[in-house]
C-alpha cells in the first residue's frame, strides 16, 4: 500500500521534471552575446595586465631595495672600521699609555 503510494509520487515527480524541461526551453542568444563575451574577456585581460605590471613593479622595487641594503651592509664604513680592525690589546694600549698607568692611584682615593 505504502510502496504503491511511493511509486505514484515518484511517477508524479518524474512527470513534473519532464514538464519542467518542456517549460524551460533553451532561449535564443541575443545578437550581443558574442561581442559581450569578447568585451568581458578584454576587460579581464586588461585588469590582469595592469595587475601584472603592478606586481612586476613591486617585485622590481623590492629586489632593488634588497640589493641596496645588501650593498650597504657589505661595504665597510670608515666610522666603524677601527672597531672592526683593531684588537682588544691594541685598543687597550691606545687608551692606557705608559704615562697613564692602569692601576689605581692611592692618593686619588682620598679625594
Amino acid at each position, binding site marked *: 500500500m505504502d510502496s504503491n503510494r511511493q511509486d505514484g509520487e515518484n511517477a508524479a515527480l518524474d512527470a513534473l521534471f519532464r514538464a519542467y524541461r518542456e517549460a524551460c526551453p533553451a532561449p535564443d542568444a541575443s545578437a550581443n552575446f558574442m561581442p559581450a*563575451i569578447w568585451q568581458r574577456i578584454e576587460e579581464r585581460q586588461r585588469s590582469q595586465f595592469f595587475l601584472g605590471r603592478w606586481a612586476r613593479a613591486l617585485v622590481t622595487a623590492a629586489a632593488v631595495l634588497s640589493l641596496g641594503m645588501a650593498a650597504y651592509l657589505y661595504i665597510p664604513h670608515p666610522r666603524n672600521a677601527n672597531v672592526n680592525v683593531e684588537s682588544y690589546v691594541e685598543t687597550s694600549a691606545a687608551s692606557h699609555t705608559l704615562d697613564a698607568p692602569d692601576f689605581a692611584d692611592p692618593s686619588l682615593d682620598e679625594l
Partner: protein
Amino acid sequence: MLVDFAIIQRAQGGDSAAFNDLVLAYRKRTLGTIARLISRPEDVEDVAQEVFLRLYFSLDQLRTAEVFEPWLYRLTVNAAYDYLRKQRRRRESRMSDLSEQQVVLADALAGGRVDHDVRQRQQVRETVDELLGAVSEADRLLLTLKEVEGLSLKELEKIYRVKENALKVRLFRARQRVLKALAASGGQPGGSAPAKAGR
C-alpha cells in the same frame, strides 16, 4: 561532441576564431542548461557569458580535448552555483525575488491576457522551483542535471569527479526531500510546497 578536437586544440593555442566556433557550437546547449538550472530567464545570458569567460581563461588547463564536454558542464554548474548563492543572499526583498518575466506574467495573468498553455508552463516552473527549494543549491543542480537534463550517472561522475555510489546516495537523499515537499504540497503542480523540507 559538437565540434572537432582540432577546434578545441586550436582554441587552446589562443586561436580566437576557433574559440568563436566553440562558443557558437555550445551556446544553445549551455543556455538551455542554465535556463533550467537557475530559472530566471533574464539572467541566463549573463551566466552563460560567465561560463564562456571562465572557459576562455581555463582552456589551457584542459589536458585532453576528449574531456571538453564534462569540463564545460563543470564550468556551467560552477557558474550556476555561484549565481544561486548570490541570489540567496539577495532574497530578503520578496518583490526583487520575482524575475522580470514573472512580474510581467503576473501582471498579464491578472489582466487575463495569457493563454492556458503559457499559464500552465509558468505554473510548472514555479512548482518545480519551489520543490527544488527543499534541497541545497548543490543538490538542486545535481538533481536538475540528472532528472531534467537527463545526464547519466557516468556523465555526472566525470563532471563532479565523485564516485558513482556517492552520487547515487546524494541523488537519492535529494529526491527524497523533494518527494517530501511534493507530498506536502498535495502532489499537484501549482500546490504550495514548503520552502524548506529540512536538509
